[in-house]
């Protein structure tokens, strides 16, 4: 079936919340407003305000609350209205969520997903146009995912919820309305496995998230000039599927 990236995320979270009572959604405007980008449309109606929690505009406070809840056995999905606001929660993400497993010697962990849109969109200006995935990717203990297609968005978000680690899941505002084929029924996409989008012998292009769509156009343009490019979408930035990239190069 063909659905939007937004709908794919909605389905992933809905399926995971139906599967597991310990999964809950927390963030600004996720409930009665239906999500700032309408990703959680219909959630508060289906799951109730105990599992779909509208928060005050306090990223450190509610992200930290989610980390504590995860340490106590729950599986939070934190929606950051955008990752630009996530910098206010950096202490919670880096010092608590990412490190608790290590510094407790494996006694505690923070199985959770921190998701929302990142990168640039339509003239959002300096403070709302940032790609922060490199920051997160440098923090031991975090996994970082940035899917480009509805299929991968759905399958990877479901994997992220079940992963057992804190997972940074970066969406792109310009992708929410894009459409694509997803499998019927239940499926997941494994974390850390790249997707070879196109085979070619002349050059390797690695692109993720919104830039994958740009790179696909570029590959077509190159092909018209007789240059066959190989296009790889890593999908996951941490862990990165280096084998796939290296063998292509």
């Amino acid at each position, binding site marked *: 079936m063909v659905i939007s990236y937004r709908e794919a995320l909605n389905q992933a979270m809905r399926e995971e919340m139906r599967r597991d009572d310990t999964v*809950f959604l927390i963030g600004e405007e996720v409930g009665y407003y239906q999500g700032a980008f309408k990703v959680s449309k219909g959630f508060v109606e289906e799951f109730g305000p*105990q599992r779909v929690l509208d*928060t*005050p505009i*306090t990223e*450190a*406070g*509610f*992200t*930290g*609350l*989610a*980390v*504590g*809840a*995860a*340490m*106590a*056995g*729950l599986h939070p999905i934190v929606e950051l209205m955008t990752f630009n606001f996530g910098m206010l929660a950096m*202490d*919670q993400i880096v*010092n*608590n969520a990412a490190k*608790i*497993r*290590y*510094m*407790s*010697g*494996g*006694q*505690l*962990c923070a*199985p959770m997903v921190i998701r929302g849109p990142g990168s640039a969109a339509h003239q959002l200006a300096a403070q709302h146009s940032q790609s922060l995935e490199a920051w997160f990717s440098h923090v*031991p*203990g975090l*996994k970082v995912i940035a899917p480009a297609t509805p299929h991968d968005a759905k399958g990877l978000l479901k994997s992220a919820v079940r*992963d*057992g*680690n804190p997972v940074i899941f970066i969406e792109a505002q310009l992708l929410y309305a894009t459409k694509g084929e997803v499998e019927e029924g239940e499926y997941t996409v494994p974390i850390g496995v790249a997707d070879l989008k196109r085979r070619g012998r002349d050059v390797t292009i690695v692109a993720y998230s919104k830039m994958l769509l740009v790179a696909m156009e570029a590959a077509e343009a190159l092909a018209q000039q007789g240059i066959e490019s190989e296009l790889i979408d890593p999908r996951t930035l941490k862990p990165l599927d280096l084998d796939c990239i290296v063998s292509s190069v």
Partner: protein
Amino acid sequence: MDRDDLLSLYRQMLLIRRFEEKSAEMYALAKIAGFLHLYIGEEAVAVGAIAATRPDDYVISAYRDHGHCLARGSDPGKVMAELFGKATGLCKGKGGSMHLIDLEHHFMGGYAIVGGHLPLATGLAFAAQYQRRTDVVLCFFGEGAVPSGQAHEAFNLAALWKLPVVFICENNRYGMGTPVQRAIALYGDVAETARSYGIDAQRVDGMDVLAVRTVSQRVVDQVRAGKGPYFIEAVTYRFMGHSMADPAHGHYRTKEEVDEERKRDPLVLLRNTMLEQHLATDGDFKVMEREIGGIVADAVAFAEASAFPDPKELFTDVYAGD
């Protein structure tokens, strides 16, 4: 509280005191590295408050955490081994002094970014509320955390969602070297910060373990009954420096001030009370000293005899399944 209760409170405070005095010695001998923040002088707060908890309640603390961990019942040998950085420590030597964590005793740490663990405490409390359990959270922090943004965000969410968390502010009057008068606008009544969020609050003499115990029991019972969060300001004093790198007096406080505060040593206060009320004899305290001395010596021997973690341990416990 009967004689046994009082002896138990004294025993726990004495264990923390002697354990930390020995830790300081071990630090001087370079057996312990890194930071070491001693709780000496403040023992009545952890011991009095934690005595009011059940085993399934969660306790969480800042980096001055040896006292809370021991009061929670952690094995002194494993705690000392953790300070030594040994593989037999509570956290396999990966936590250290500032990140003591003991899940078995529901001691959730040990956090070293000031103010950063208050949101975690609200999350532990949220989990209890979400799963309709009746456990509560005791969250200890210094007054230095009170003006931090994360503390305010935690107070607001705790009050907004009526979370079962007891915020226990250990007001020892100095955030490292800065006196509270130069750090908190409402320094005359630190608890007012919590009240401004609609959180009930009370000040207690943090050198008087019986007062802390009594107030904490009432507060824990109230919070457990679903009445929302509570803020206790325990007025206390740190007899030692901020850390081992900081002398007890010098730049920011005088020897006279420290000597004056030492007259209200929480161990001395309880001991005098028990002697006056004929609840214990000098002999009882001597016996206890010997017993605690043995426990601390055993803890050091255990830590000394234990191995350092294998270097490979650097790469384990980073991700699930490591």
